[in-house]
């Protein structure tokens, strides 16, 4: 194992972690503040990816596509919140599970009706399709670096939003003293819709970014949803900082597992067995990580605001 390969995989891990952070940040806000388990978060990611791909293909401009994808995911999120989810905040978590499961089925099927069953493919925009040599001797795809940059930027903006703005103050206060915030004249319902919309837009952004790297297909949301839940559980529900740390941890562990476990297994097994055993072990690795973290710290790494 060479150092260059290791560094390259570290960057891959960070890039995956940043993608997960975009999803996890929204999910953890909704979860930590509104106490709502939203299984349909992955569906918003999927909507973001589909709309970005369609608009980019139609307009020929990736930036416009990304904005459209974020707007569409945000709008879808707000509609879902207004129609169904806002009546579930006070309910049992299980009611929320069932309702958002219903939302997943609906959004998936609508997507299939609108875009058809075939997967869409989106190529990397030309201005990002080159490579940059930040590790000497190992050119690295510019698009992946771009994702890392976008993710970090979002992290900084989000932190500023939560720590320094009035909206952020209300979000933090609403998480712990919902009635009090309401009693002071803040429209809690609207606050929640706004928070949900922000979370949905972040999910849409993640979907938009993922577009050029993955097949855009129905069901892509559920694949990443579980990973996202793992992230916020490891980080501690409701904590944006926890979401960032958890996301990077999961991204790096998952990527290292995928890259190095099959290699390590080859010293024990014949190549074909080693590949399949290695692949499964690496798929397992993040769940092992989560189980270990929870057995060690039953409430995740970071405590949420007052939670």
């Amino acid at each position: 194992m060479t150092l260059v390969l290791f560094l390259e995989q570290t960057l891959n891990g960070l890039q995956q972690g940043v993608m997960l952070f975009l999803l996890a940040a929204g999910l953890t806000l909704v979860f930590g503040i509104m106490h709502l388990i939203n299984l349909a978060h992955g569906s918003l990611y999927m909507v973001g990816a589909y709309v970005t791909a369609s608009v980019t293909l139609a307009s020929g401009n990736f930036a416009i596509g990304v904005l459209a994808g974020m707007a569409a995911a945000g709008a879808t999120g707000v509609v879902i919140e207004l129609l169904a989810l806002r009546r579930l905040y006070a309910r049992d978590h299980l009611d929320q599970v069932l309702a958002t499961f219903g939302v997943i089925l609906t959004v998936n099927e609508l997507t299939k009706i609108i875009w058809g069953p075939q997967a869409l493919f989106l190529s990397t925009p030309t201005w990002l399709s080159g490579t940059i040599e930040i590790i000497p001797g190992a050119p690295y795809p510019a698009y992946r670096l771009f994702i890392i940059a976008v993710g970090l930027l979002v992290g900084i903006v989000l932190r500023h939003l939560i720590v320094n703005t009035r909206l952020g103050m209300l979000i933090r206060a609403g998480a712990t003293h919902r009635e009090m915030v309401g009693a002071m004249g803040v429209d809690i319902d609207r606050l929640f819709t706004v928070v949900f919309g922000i979370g949905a837009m972040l999910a849409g952004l993640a979907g938009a970014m993922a577009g050029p790297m993955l097949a855009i297909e129905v069901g892509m949301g559920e694949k990443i949803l579980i990973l996202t839940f793992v992230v916020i559980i490891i980080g501690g529900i409701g904590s944006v900082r926890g979401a960032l740390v958890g996301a990077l941890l999961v991204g790096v562990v998952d990527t290292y597992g995928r890259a190095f476990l099959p290699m390590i297994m080859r010293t024990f097994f014949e190549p074909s067995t080693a590949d399949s055993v290695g692949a499964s072990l690496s798929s397992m690795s993040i769940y092992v990580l989560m189980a270990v973290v929870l057995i060690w710290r039953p409430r995740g790494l970071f405590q949420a605001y007052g939670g």
Partner: protein
Amino acid sequence: MNRRTIVHSVGLLILATLPVVAEAMGEPFLTTIASRVLIYAIAAVSLDLILGFGAMVSFGHSAFFGIGAYVVGILTHHAFNSEAIAFLPGDWTGSTAAVIQWPLAILTAGLFALVIGALSLRTQGVYFIMITLAFAQMLYYLMISLPTYGGEDGLNLWERSNLPPFDLYDDREFYYLVLALLLAFLGLTRRIVSSRFGMVLKGCKQNEPRMKALGFPTYRYKLTAFVIAGMGAGLAGALAANHTEFVGPGMMHWTRSGEIMVMVILGGMGTLIGPVLGAATLLLMEEVLSNFTEHWMVILGPFLVLVVLYLRGGIYGWLTGRRNGDD
């Protein structure tokens, strides 16, 4: 007669006469579908034992279902090939006898539930949901990585279990056998939830610190319930393996756990009949709607949302006019 007695009697009547009616209608495949419903009903009832009565939201219930199925699959595989089972001492070549397979499936599932439950019950709430999910996913990927047992493709069962004097290949006999097992399991869970043990479990659901303060070792009570639920799911898995004559890692995937959980909530959790109704509703809607339109999920999805919004207490609660929990 109150509404509950009516619901129970009508349900029992339908279940008892279903194969005969199906044949009279000239639609014998209904019996096969109904068997599938009953098998999932066993899994759903077992989940409800911990979910509805103990507030333990296990999102990894499909693990035990899958383990039950794999025990049957693996034993049959070895018996068919007369190969010794490598990971067991001695040179046992498996068996196709139900009296060996099924109890072993139940016990293995129970054993895994003991280990998984012991670790998971250290956490609570949403963390518990996720850690049970994590363990189930680990088992899912483990089964994918075992090429001996089909890996991703799963195992075809060359033979169904042997259970003289019954013929499990006969759809009607299989149906009645599954029905009998479901009723027996319902009877057992009914005894459990109305016993002192069940009271402690329900107490934990309402206020665990208080139960602890009263001196109950709540961890042990919850773990015991978790193991019983795992065993129930193991039985359902063993039956499912026989029903489809196939076992695969898909049986352990998290979406399967979600489906079983949806059955419980849809039917009405905290009741014993609710999960049976939930299993029937979900599977039959899938069956009927998919004949009707390719895009049946745009009907099922909003239906689930509407049930949550307007039918509190699930279908059973709606039929009997009761809310969750007062069964």
